[in-house]
């Protein structure tokens, strides 16, 4: 059982200035997940008539990409290859002070407390994150175009992105290159996606810039903090795709 001090960012709404507030939680089991510890805090706050801390979460098994906390200076906390909901309290010690902040980036404005607005990601996907095929039921047979196992596996690795935004949050430049690179790569690696590959990469990058994300300076922090281990190779691939698409006109 642990007693902890939590320093949490509280912000009433988008217009509020916001500040760090200290809380104490007691009798935290090491088997709890981090968000269950937050539930305990919130139950405490509700019972004392205070507003609970708002934070995004949903599936609590590391796949929906909702949860998004910057814990002790790291996206999704100190463990690797996991989302915040998969972080367990056994990573901490009795008496610790834990700092909990929302994702920080101009393109991710805070909505409330620890919840940020990730609509910029949506707009990037809408700019080209798809293959223009109708769901008519008249597509050709799934096995009509063989795809090498290698390409299919690589596309899958890129497609594993959950869109949580940890890459942006952890990037010293708030760059979204890993997120965009993963989507561009998934389609660029598959024959189905190649038809409109040039337009896709140009449109998605243009939207990414419009949203105000920063430039990639290849620190590699995103790859390390990414809960799904999306590789930096995807950024290189996007650079390649973009440059060749731009040169072609």
């Amino acid at each position, binding site marked *: 059982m642990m007693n902890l001090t939590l320093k949490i960012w509280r912000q009433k709404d988008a217009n509020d200035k916001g500040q760090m507030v200290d809380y104490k939680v007691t009798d935290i089991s090491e088997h709890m997940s981090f968000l269950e510890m937050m539930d305990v805090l919130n139950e405490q706050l509700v019972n004392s008539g205070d507003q609970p801390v708002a934070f995004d979460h949903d599936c609590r098994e590391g796949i929906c990409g909702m949860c998004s906390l910057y814990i002790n200076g790291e996206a999704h906390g100190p463990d690797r290859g996991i989302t915040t909901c998969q972080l367990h309290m056994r990573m901490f010690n009795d008496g610790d002070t834990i700092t909990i902040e929302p994702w*920080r980036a101009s393109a991710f404005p805070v909505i409330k407390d620890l919840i940020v607005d990730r609509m910029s990601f949506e707009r990037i996907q809408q700019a080209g994150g798809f293959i223009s095929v109708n769901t008519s039921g008249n597509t050709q047979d799934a096995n009509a175009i063989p795809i090498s196992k290698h390409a299919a596996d690589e596309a899958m690795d890129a497609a594993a992105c959950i869109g949580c935004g940890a890459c942006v949050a952890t990037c*010293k*430049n*708030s760059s979204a290159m890993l997120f965009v690179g993963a989507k561009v790569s998934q389609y660029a690696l598959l024959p189905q996606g190649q038809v409109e590959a040039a337009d896709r990469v140009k449109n998605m990058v243009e939207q990414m810039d419009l949203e105000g994300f920063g*430039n990639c*300076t*290849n620190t590699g922090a995103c790859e*390390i903090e990414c809960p799904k281990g999306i590789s930096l190779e995807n950024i290189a691939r996007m*650079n390649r795709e973009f*440059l060749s698409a731009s040169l072609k006109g």
Partner: protein
Amino acid sequence: MSGLLSSSIARKFAMALSALFLIFFLLMHVSINLLSIFSEDAFNVASHFMGTNPLIQFLMQPILIIGVVFHFVMGFILELKNRKAVGVHKYVKNNGAANSTWMSRNMIYSGLAILLFIVIHFLDFWIPELKYKYVEVLPEEPTRYYHEMVEKFHNPIKVGVYVVAFVFLALHLLHGFMSAFQSMGLNNKYTKTFERCAKAYSIVIPGLFIFIAIFHYFNQ
């Protein structure tokens, strides 16, 4: 092609190209400097050639200057854009060391240190050189270079500044060299080997510059 430089990726690409050009220039520069250790004559011949050959003077030199200026200006532009992207709210606690190298996070500072050195280097060497050749139009003297250089390394403070500057250059290169390849879209199965070569380059080249300075300091 239109708007190529207006996109973030193109800016990074341009940054990488100018970087690779400067990296290549460093190799040339250190090669000539190295000659000073082995042979005074050889160094003088090479320096004289570089200093008087019209192709070098009127084509390569301006390109180099443009390259340097471009790299710095673009570096500042990118830094400003990135600061804007980060926004006014900074993390209260940020543990950058957990996921990235100091070098990669502080390119702007290692870059600024190098810029400072280049300014000193210009004042100390390049401006007198220009003055000699184009303002005062003194006669060509093919054997003056070696002495002029050795003299500069007499002052221990100068040598100290020189050494520190090249340490910063090494730090800058340790991240920058590989980063340039990534920005240009090169990341494949050879990347690991490349990375090792780039790391070796980043340490060996500045190391040689430092060695030459110290060598001359102790061999007066």
